[in-house]
């Protein structure tokens, strides 16, 4: 094939193989996803395009279920909708036995719309709109209360409905990690959580039956989970003993890391993050050692990122190359921070989507947006690329398809590769209709002449 002309560049190099900054011959290519060529997907569904691997999702959730359930019997995974609420993705997880975890009216309604019944939805969040809160109460959802005002609001609803409803509370605690998320739930160490529990126990319309704690995100130490579990069990026993409540579940939240590369961390996640088996062992063994079998509570895990991230790919094309004033090579892609919001925190690994040869050089990747902040990768080693070359970003399964913006560009197709290799659209690319569907232009503004 025809080679593009590249102006020669002068790079300061250390000696040969002794170069501790890597010898630089490019070898990282992803030309197929689950056996389907990247090029074929882009030919059929356009560029850019999000691709999910159903096989990877199922393998991962099954690995998680196996790892945790062989350590502790009453584990239930709750899929965190905010991580990825595409109907098809949620359905895959529900068919594997996960229930739903939602944090808003929109997410609650979406879960119900897919077919999840109220009693299989965990409803968290610092603000639960009254209307949906009432519906959740009526449908026996698992509700974790975040603050005192919410206790009063729920109590009001229970009074109106003349029901005694089961509720859980969210607590936050010092589990040894930084930063400690103190803005969610009631604080444990200061006694605030106990006050909240006492207030609920005294209510005639509320029954405290669960404790929820979600410590943080991308937590790379299993010790934090051991501490969390110990404190939750300790709190459970204090509540049962002093308030005579029966705690039926402990919700440990999520926070396991994925294989994405956090900015500012030197080593890749394969070296820094523990395996899921190690998390399972830490949590499971702590539970077995501290609770007797007749009193085993159900333990919910709200993992999101760690389950879905690696199954998501973004296929994008190089549209142009540009050399900046300081000699730095840059490429302009057709997908930017509008679709990869997570680049704010992560250096998302990127590979070339076709077979290519050549020495790698440091480049910067920009998106198509006319905004200075639209930098997808500040620095990555890639060989010379011509316009039209596909690039594969992975892992992007978590948060990208929920935090993406309808900004400047239409949002693209999202497809999923089934276990038998078929590529199906699970969200169609947007058109102008979608963008203007909710707009109302006042009559007086419709006539103008330029």
């Amino acid at each position, binding site marked *: 094939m025809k080679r593009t002309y590249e102006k020669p560049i002068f790079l300061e190099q250390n000696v040969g193989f002794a170069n501790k900054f890597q010898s630089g011959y490019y070898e990282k290519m992803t030309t197929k996803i689950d056996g389907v060529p990247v090029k074929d997907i882009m030919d059929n569904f356009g560029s850019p395009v999000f691709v999910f691997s159903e096989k990877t999702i199922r393998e991962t959730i*099954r690995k998680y279920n*196996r790892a945790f359930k*062989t350590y502790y*019997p009453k584990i239930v995974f709750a899929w965190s909708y905010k991580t990825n609420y595409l109907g098809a993705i949620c359905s895959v997880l529900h068919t594997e036995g996960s229930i739903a975890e939602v944090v808003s009216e929109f997410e609650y309604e979406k879960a119900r719309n897919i077919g999840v*019944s109220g009693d299989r939805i965990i409803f968290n969040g610092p603000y639960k709109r009254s209307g949906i809160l009432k519906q959740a109460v009526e449908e026996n959802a698992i509700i974790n209360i975040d603050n005192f005002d919410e206790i009063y609001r729920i109590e009001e609803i229970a009074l109106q409905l003349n029901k005694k409803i089961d509720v859980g509370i969210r607590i936050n605690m010092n589990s040894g990690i930084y930063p400690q998320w103190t803005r969610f739930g009631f604080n444990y160490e200061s006694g605030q959580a106990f006050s909240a529990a006492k207030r609920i126990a005294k209510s005639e319309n509320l029954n405290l039956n669960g404790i929820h704690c979600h410590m943080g995100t991308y937590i790379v130490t299993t010790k934090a989970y051991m501490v969390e579990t110990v404190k939750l069990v300790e709190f459970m026993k204090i509540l049962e003993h002093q308030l005579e409540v*029966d705690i*039926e579940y402990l919700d440990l939240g999520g926070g396991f890391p994925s294989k994405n590369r956090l900015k500012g961390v030197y080593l890749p996640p394969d070296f820094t993050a523990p395996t899921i088996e190690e998390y399972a062992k830490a949590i*499971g063994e702590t539970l077995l050692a501290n609770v007797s*079998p007749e009193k085993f509570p*159900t333990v919910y895990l709200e993992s999101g990122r760690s389950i879905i991230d690696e199954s998501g790919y973004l296929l994008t094309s190089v549209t142009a190359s540009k050399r900046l004033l300081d000699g730095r090579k840059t490429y302009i892609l057709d997908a930017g921070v509008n679709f990869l919001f997570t680049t704010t925190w992560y250096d998302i690994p990127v590979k070339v989507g076709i077979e290519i040869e050549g020495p790698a050089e440091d480049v910067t990747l920009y998106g198509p947006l006319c905004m200075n902040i639209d930098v997808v990768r500040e620095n990555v080693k890639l060989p010379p690329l011509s316009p039209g070359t596909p690039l594969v970003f992975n892992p992007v399964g978590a948060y990208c398809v929920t935090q993406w913006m309808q900004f400047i560009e239409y949002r693209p197709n999202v497809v999923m590769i089934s276990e038998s290799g078929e590529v199906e659209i699970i969200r169609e690319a947007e058109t102008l209709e979608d963008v203007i569907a909710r707009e109302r232009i006042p009559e007086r503004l419709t006539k103008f002449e330029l």
Partner: protein
Amino acid sequence: MILGVLIAVATFVDLNTGLCGIIAIGTAALFRIITKPSKGGYHPFDYYNPLLVGLSIGVRFKLSLLTFILILASAILTYVLTVVLKNLLGKYTALPVLSLPFVIVSSMVYLATLRSSNLFANVLIYHSPVTYFDLPIWINGYFFSLGAIFFSKNIIVGYLISGALLIHSRIMFFLSIAGYYTGALVTGEFNAAHTTTYQDMNYFNYILIAIAIGSIYLIPSIKSYVIALFAVLGSYVVLGATEVLFQNFSLPVFTLPFNITVLFFIYYSSIINSRLSTYTYLKNPESNLDYHINYTKRFELTFPGIALPFSGEWTISQAFNGLITHKGLWRYGVDFVIEDEQNQQFSGSADVLKNYYAFSKPVLSPIAGNVVEVINNIEDNAVGSINREDNWGNYVLIYDLRGFYVKVCHLEMGSVIPATGAYVTVGQKIGCCGNSGYSPTPHIHIQLQTGVNNNHPTIEFQFEQVADNNSNFFNRITPEKDMVLTPVFSSKKKKRIFELLLGDLMEFSIDDGNSKKNETIEVILDENGASCLKCGAALLYFEVHKNVFRFYKYFGPTSSILKYFFHAIPSIPLCDNNLIWTDRLSLNISLRGFMKNFILILQSFYWDIADNNVNCKFTGNYKFETHNITRLLSREVGSTKSEVKIHDKKFIEHIRIQKNGSIININRIKEKN
């Protein structure tokens, strides 16, 4: 009920006899009131013997002042003798009194009155046989014998008793005929008296023996019928002997052959601990059979049941009589491993121990008991090598109070937690799965054995209340190679919802398409302390056994809201997984009337001729469906589908039953706060 009425009518066919019987009962009752026993249970059957004595007097002597005094004396004597014998026999042999007191007292009365010339002069009656319809003698003989039980020679009494038997129990009716004719034919053959044999009224003993042994004291079955007929044959000897003996004193044999034969046979059954013996007698042999078949098929408890010694889904790599190592004395062992979807026991390289899913996983105690032996210092082998010397590796040996030992082997070095002497509960962690002993790759080995040493044989066992990897729940399952099993742990909330406490009241409305009414159900304890639901005269017994709530016995009218509950809900596993399970119901819950009785009498000959299974599955966390199919010889004769919704605080919210085309809706009525 009908039986009682018909018998009452039968005794009054001869007015004199009937009146004497009444007087006897009355005397006994009065005597009881006067002596006011504070201890000793009263049972209406206590009046049966005095009644018979009264009848035996009334058939011989016309009612007069003398007869009246005779009845008084005899009735009191009989009543006292009944209570005393009941106590003595019960204390030393657990035998019933049957009609022994009657035999003893009536014999004495007849003997005593031999010299009462006054009685004979005035009031002696002689009855002659009365027949209707010109039926052959061998048919009439049967009815006369039946009538003779109540001292009547009027064949109409025989017709009435026979009718009562047919209505009350077809099995009893069948046995009355089989017993009578077996005895009559055999005796007739021996005595070369084929026609006159049918005039011997004492053959009612054969009838009573056949009924008592074939259907009352043994569960009706081919075996019990055969034993009953053998008993009849045996009693030919007893009957013949007593007839000859008693003739010398001008005494009839009464029911002495029956009492002797049946008492000995019952005692024999109890000594050999026969599985055919009836332990609860429900209203008739059919109900007994129905209850017994259902109970044994529902709760097949031949082998001890234990829990799984782990958490999550594990695969059986070797079961009983396994080809690799489970042979000879150690044949009842089970090996468990963890496999992934590609049937691999490891992830990554097969040479590294830590890559095996099973390695280091918690091992939980399968029983509650005391730890008697622990080995914790054997090193784990590298993958592929085995340790033949310490072939059990690290293990824990636990003693179960049911009288056996459980051994869990090949544990990880240093991982055993409880010390010797410690008490462990089911589900408590005892160690980690390792690769020590005769173990090339990590697995758990579990076996039950009769003693502590290695040469104590292993015992066959089953796992209790487990699920497989397709959500099928099993109350009991015999382990087999390649099964994937996981333990079932109950949901605290569901356990609370089904914690029905004494005194709980629940109101339901029931609408069967024709009428709608409200019913109140109360939770009570019966006289033996068993928990049941009560609604009017109906009682539905329930229990929570480990993780399952179930109903197990129903007493009461043919139609009751409680019967619908049993029909729709034989049992519920109290966990949060959407499980699928099966159960079984007795025929009287699913069918009624002719069809039910027809199947039951067939079933007495061959228990497996019909089945009545229920397939159930959860359709949501608090909703499930059940489908009951009744089959006779594989043909469906009844089908009922039910949808049940569990109440979020206590028991059930709603049931919708679809049965024979009609739909019944049962709804919980909200409690007023």
